[in-house]
């Protein structure tokens, strides 16, 4: 990515050169003297009690330097809102990718062989794969004793239901009864995956009681606290460093194997490295997109007003909570959407099953629920005899409107995004009978969180930006030197970044929640403002003028109007005393009337919501069900855009990922909860030749109480409405709805031919 600067020059991202020359190091590229290789022994059953683990043969294999099971580690459970998991299985395995034991050996082959040689005796337990039937009275329990687990008090522990959340506004039943039309729909989304192209890797090395862990994580600070908690050591003794990160998309959020590898390295008394195969990357991580069964019911008046929405959502949590305990409530908010609805009653169940755990994958829950809701909205429009775009014109939120929990919105550009998307795609034109345009609208909250940054000016006037921000590839961190340069009247090339090292910078949420520019950027700009103040003070003293009469430009602090009266920033920095720090004030989450809601986990209102409309032009081969997306027009309100090329790159990438979700990406489970397609041949990502033309526009409304310079988040929203827009286009061609996601050729064909569902 290049970042255009105000001077019109091109600023090449600082990590760009090493990425195009192959010199850059990702975690799997690192090696350490004496390093051993890790391998895991995975569960042999999707649900079973462990009766006995015998590691004798594995330990006896030449080259094996460590074997670790949960019995060797502190008896600690981890997890976000529910602490339900141990590093290695303790007593019970609950999904196919559960780790029973870890091995370190001098070669990868020996490690794999040793893992195989571990003898595990099981008592198989009933397998629960149907996450809806999980609520039946006679359903087997995934966690039979979980009332004893530590958990957030808002998490309902009831059978297999890990959380139950409602969004309630007014009296939905009464409102539904007086509606002119009532439309009901049911949709179902399969599970899917984030699939970063870099499979994860972890390298751990101890020095005394301190461990350094290089990890391909999106969230180094969460990894650090997870290691500290599970190994019962202080966070100060854990340093997590992220080399170049080969993508994440949420799949590399949360604590992921850093602690197991650290435990192996401690036992082996040497560095240990874990590198996942693609199959492990599919099966063993605790972060996939959740399957959801969605039922929507909307009551509307003839003029389009939405008077009532009822919805019931059931989500598949898989075997463990991880960081995904909030998924149910987030999904409930997306079942409302960015619409004015007079009365709402949405309930959402997040259920355990004996499948891979689900967790945050790019805009968690939103693309699937948007896909269902936006098709439902088209069905409402049809019932009303209104064009789908016209219905949205009449019902989308705007300034002063009330959200699902009576949050009152500031200036917001969703209606403008609708008009722009429709204009870019040329919505009203005539198309061949096998082509159509579909439109969908979605939203996503910004995520206010603390962050902190330092900026050091070095003796020669160059600068070092120290930030906890995590670069996932988007360029969000790489753009920071341009912001700092603008603030300080310096060239962005004057700055280097010290980043993704927990020993260097303050806590940061990491590359998740579209928060890097929003929070880390705020902190960095605050640190730059601190430096600016120090430079002005020093120059004011030196030049004997008031601070207010000075400006920073071209590497100088100079008197406004008299550019020859100046002092160079390098000279001031030469004293070695210019060190800025900053955090900025975390924007407040807006208030709402949430008293009637159950299971409040923080998503009841949306801070600085990002709004998106996408329009998709598709062509459908009715006979085969093959769908090609010819063009997607994407209009977004993400507030003020600070880095246009980076922001556009998020949209093109998000749309193509959304296209995959729409048409081909689905994890298929067998009756035992095992994945049937844990490889890229049968889990089909969109290739270059399938990617559509993408036209982008930004509705730039400076947003108050949001990110720096009136910005909002950018990274997750692009994927939210893509599948929905494609679905609405496909339905227009077919005259029928495809009610299961992904809309594979077979499902499109079945809908077209009225075969099956």
């Amino acid at each position, binding site marked *: 990515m290049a970042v255009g600067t105000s001077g019109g020059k091109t600023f090449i991202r600082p*990590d760009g050169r090493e990425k*195009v020359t192959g010199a850059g190091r990702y975690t799997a590229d690192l090696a350490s003297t004496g390093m051993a290789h890790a391998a895991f022994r995975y569960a042999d059953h999707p649900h079973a009690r462990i009766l006995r683990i015998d590691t004798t043969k594995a330990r006896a294999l030449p080259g094996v330097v460590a074997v670790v099971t949960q019995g060797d580690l502190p008896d600690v459970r981890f997890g976000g809102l529910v602490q339900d998991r141990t590093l290695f299985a303790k007593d019970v395995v609950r999904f196919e990718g559960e780790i029973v034991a870890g091995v370190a050996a001098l070669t990868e082959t020996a490690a794999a062989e040793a893992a195989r040689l571990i003898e595990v005796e099981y008592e198989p337990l009933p397998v629960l794969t149907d996450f809806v039937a999980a609520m039946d009275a006679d359903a087997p329990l995934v966690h039979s004793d979980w009332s004893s687990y530590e958990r957030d008090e808002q998490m309902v522990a009831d059978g297999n239901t890990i959380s139950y959340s409602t969004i309630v506004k007014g009296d939905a039943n009464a409102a539904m009864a007086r509606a002119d039309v009532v439309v009901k729909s049911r949709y179902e989304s399969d599970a899917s995956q984030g699939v970063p*192209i870099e499979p994860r890797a972890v390298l751990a090395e101890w020095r005394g009681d301190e461990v350094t862990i290089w990890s391909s994580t999106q969230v180094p600070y969460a990894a650090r606290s997870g290691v500290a908690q599970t190994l019962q050591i202080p966070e100060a003794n854990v340093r997590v460093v992220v080399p170049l990160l080969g993508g994440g998309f949420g799949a590399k959020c949360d604590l992921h194997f850093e602690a197991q590898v650290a435990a192996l390295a401690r036992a082996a008394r040497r560095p240990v490295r874990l590198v996942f195969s693609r199959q492990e990357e599919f099966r063993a991580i605790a972060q996939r997109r959740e399957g959801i069964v969605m039922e929507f019911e909307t009551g509307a008046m003839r003029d389009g007003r939405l008077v009532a929405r009822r919805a019931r959502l059931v989500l598949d949590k898989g075997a463990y909570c991880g960081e995904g305990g909030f998924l149910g409530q987030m999904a409930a908010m997306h079942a409302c959407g960015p619409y004015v609805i007079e009365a709402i009653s949405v309930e959402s169940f997040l259920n355990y099953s004996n499948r891979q755990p689900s967790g945050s994958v790019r805009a968690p829950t939103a693309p699937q629920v948007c896909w269902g809701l936006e098709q439902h909205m088209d069905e409402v429009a049809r019932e009303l005899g209104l064009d789908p775009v016209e219905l949205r014109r009449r019902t989308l939120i705007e300034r002063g409107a009330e959200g699902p929990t009576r949050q009152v919105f500031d200036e917001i550009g969703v209606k403008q995004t609708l008009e722009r998307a429709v204009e870019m795609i040329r919505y009203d034109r005539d198309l061949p009978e096998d082509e159509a345009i579909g439109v969908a609208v979605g939203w996503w909250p910004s995520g206010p969180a603390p962050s902190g940054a330092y900026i050091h000016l070095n003796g020669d006037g160059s600068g070092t930006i120290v930030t906890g921000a995590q670069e996932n590839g988007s360029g969000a961190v790489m753009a920071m030197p341009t912001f700092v340069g603008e603030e300080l009247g310096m060239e962005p090339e004057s700055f280097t970044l010290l980043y993704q090292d927990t020993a260097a910078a303050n806590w940061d949420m990491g590359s998740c929640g579209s928060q890097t520019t929003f929070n880390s950027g705020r902190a960095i700009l605050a640190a730059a403002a601190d430096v600016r103040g120090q430079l002005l003070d020093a120059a004011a003293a030196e030049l004997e003028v008031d601070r207010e009469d000075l400006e920073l430009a071209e590497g100088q602090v100079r008197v406004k109007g008299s550019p020859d009266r100046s002092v160079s920033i390098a000279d001031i920095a030469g004293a070695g005393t210019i060190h800025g720090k900053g955090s900025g004030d975390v924007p407040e989450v807006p208030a709402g009337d949430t008293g009637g809601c159950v299971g409040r986990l923080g998503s009841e209102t949306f801070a600085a919501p990002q709004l998106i409309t996408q329009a998709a032009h598709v062509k459908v081969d009715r006979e085969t069900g093959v769908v090609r997306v010819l063009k997607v027009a994407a209009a977004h309100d993400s507030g003020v855009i600070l880095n246009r090329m980076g922001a556009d790159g998020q949209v093109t990438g998000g749309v193509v990922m959304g296209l995959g979700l729409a048409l081909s990406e689905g994890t298929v489970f067998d009756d035992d909860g095992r994945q049937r397609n844990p*490889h890229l041949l049968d889990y089909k990502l969109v290739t270059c030749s399938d990617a559509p033309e993408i036209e982008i526009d930004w509705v730039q409304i400076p947003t108050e109480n949001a990110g720096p310079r009136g910005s909002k988040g950018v990274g997750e929203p692009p994927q939210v409405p893509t599948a929905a827009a494609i679905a609405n286009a496909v339905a227009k061609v077919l005259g029928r709805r495809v009610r299961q996601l992904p809309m594979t050729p077979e499902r499109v064909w079945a809908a077209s031919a009225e075969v099956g569902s």
Partner: protein
Amino acid sequence: MKTAATLTVNGAAYPVELDPHLSLLDAVRDLIGLTGSKEGCDDSECGACMMLLDGKPVNSCSYLALQADGRDVTTVEGLAEGDELTPLQRALLEHGGVQCGFCTPGMLISATALLREHPDPSEEDVRIALSGNLCRCTGYDGIVRAVRSAARSSA
């Protein structure tokens, strides 16, 4: 039984002892120490490991190192002349074709092979030629524009 062989990578000859089952990717990464080529999958689907073998793109993770004995191997590290980036490398940076960078080495190899055969490819040519290289970040948009721009600038 390991076999003595010579791998010629980016013009330099490396004497190596190779296990018959060792892949070209592992040999280049682990024995020669050039880690620019990446491993992203196990079924020749992602293309992150692509190298040029006698000028033609190969998924090096699925190619035995011993078969490359005496052949000419080019990796991403061998594309630039010294410190000077190729027009393709520069265009990729200028057009937003690099995000996380993990697919980049393979993309560059595929695009280099394409431009050698088709100095001025159509968008369709580029899209077909890059279909063996999966990218999850960019949506391919910046990459395709970069390849076409590099083609025009070297024409």
